[in-house]
């Protein structure tokens, strides 16, 4: 496994953001993503996960504070240059997209005048979709569609991948497949991954988790340290039991709530 280096690739410095004038949503948020990080952004619906990812990708602009990408001010970054460093996949990917798998993946080359070393076939091979290169996106399963977009971001060559709830609406098999694929990409290609999710047990598969509530961080670190009974209660407003078993040494149970 690659170790997380000390090189900061993304820094939030006292970031504030509000939707509309009198609705402050993110208050004074500060954190860093280091090279090689594999972070699960965990929180209830409306806790601010998506907003944080959109701020990190430059789609939303902070009302105060600053965000730096490899030490450079994100807001001053040229669009194409930014696209070579950071890639964002929204939660909802339109299923009516008319392109074939190959057409879509090759869009990852758009920020480049001179294509990088990786070609479309190689990217498709990494995500296991080479055989479906000529299929239309709308004819794929949800998991395959997600992997197609991941292949596009691979070709884009960004070192930081921001994924908004990519596991939502996927069967458990595809969820496992996708998390394994991303872990592998991180191991082989040293791509840092920040992924929003709301399944607390899936969060155990991440090296680090960031627990979010009301636009702020209530815990960050290894999942087994962060996901305590009290913090999960605070974040999700639900009582859980932390069971000691499983590969990770723990399992979060909420069955007694029923």
């Amino acid at each position, binding site marked *: 496994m690659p170790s997380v280096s000390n090189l900061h690739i993304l820094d939030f410095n006292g970031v504030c953001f509000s939707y509309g004038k009198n609705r402050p949503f993110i208050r004074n948020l500060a954190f860093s993503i280091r090279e090689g990080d594999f972070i699960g952004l965990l929180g209830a619906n409306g806790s601010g996960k998506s907003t944080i990812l959109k701020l990190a990708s430059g*789609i939303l602009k902070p009302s105060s504070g600053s965000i730096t990408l490899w030490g450079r001010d994100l807001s001053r970054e040229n669009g194409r240059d930014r696209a070579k460093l950071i890639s964002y996949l929204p939660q909802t990917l339109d299923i009516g997209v008319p*392109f074939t798998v190959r057409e879509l993946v090759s869009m990852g080359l758009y920020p480049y005048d001179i294509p990088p070393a990786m070609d479309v076939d190689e990217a498709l091979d990494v995500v296991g979709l080479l055989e479906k290169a000529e299929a239309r996106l709308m004819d794929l399963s949800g998991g395959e569609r997600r992997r197609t977009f991941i292949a596009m971001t691979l070709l884009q060559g960004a070192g930081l991948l921001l994924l908004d709830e990519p596991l939502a609406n996927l069967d458990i098999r595809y969820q496992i497949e996708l998390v394994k694929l991303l872990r592998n990409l991180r191991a082989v290609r040293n791509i840092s991954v920040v992924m929003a999710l709301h399944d607390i047990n899936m969060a155990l598969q991440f090296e680090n988790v960031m627990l979010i509530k009301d636009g702020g961080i209530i815990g960050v670190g290894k999942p087994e340290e962060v996901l305590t009974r009290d913090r999960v209660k605070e974040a999700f407003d639900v009582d859980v039991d932390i069971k000691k078993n499983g590969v990770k040494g723990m399992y979060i149970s909420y069955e007694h709530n029923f």
Partner: protein
Amino acid sequence: MSQLKILILFFIVLFVFFCSLVLGPKIIMPGALDDVEREILFSIRLPRVLVAFLMGTALGASGAVLQGILRNPLADPYVLGISSGASLAAALGIISGMIFLGSVTTPVLAFIGAIATGGIVGVMGIKRGGFWPERLLLAGVGMSFLCSALLMLIMSLSTDEGMRRATLWIFGDLSMSDWQRIPYGSALVLIGVVLSLSRAKALNALILGDELAHSLGFAPQRERFILFISVGLMTAASVSLGGMIGFIGLLMPHIMRFFFGADNRILIPASALGGGALLCTADLVSRTVLPPMELPAGVVTAIIGAPYFLYLLRRKDALSI
């Protein structure tokens, strides 16, 4: 494979162009032309065929661009009222005798009308920061009715025969085509097609949604604006060349997407060429099918286009962009 298809399309365009020049109430074989035939060919047929081709090109390409930027398979300049807005502005110019820019006054006014109507429809179609397809289409239909009604009013009120004739072409009459409108028409179409082609990658990205377009390095609002201007230019060209003709902008991108795929770097030029060929064919049919009577070319495009469109509807996912 794709190159072969493009080559075939190119030959179809050349074939249609040639047939449109040769065929008609009088068949003219190039080679041995007498004075009358030369007059028919160069003063009547060639400008008419060029006007039809340019209009079809503009309509086909602008349909492809509009369907992409609005992510809506039913978008085209006619449905969204952009053509009616352009026509109304041009007609108002003609009626009031505006000639501040000489012969380019009409296309300039048509461009202003196209952009203004498109802007109004766009603003009305926005809800919670994004385009809502149903709102957009309904706004387009509403604006289209309003502009058409105002055009009819102008026509009914104008007593002068010259003015009446001048406004007639707005309703898609190609029989009055002459060389006068061709230079600015081709310039506008060329600028529009080149501008939209130069942003074809951005258009592909916009189809994925604004957030993914941003992630790929594009500024969605800016790209959409540039592409919208290209649609305005092409619609203005089309309307000032021969008035309003529907169906081509709606239909041609669907046909071409079926053959060439959805990549706008190929789809825009293919829809442009296909649109040109279709309107030339429609015009040829309109002036040969019931001689000496001429049908409006727009009627023929609808008669040719509608059955194919209905066939497409039955195909799975045919109405996705």
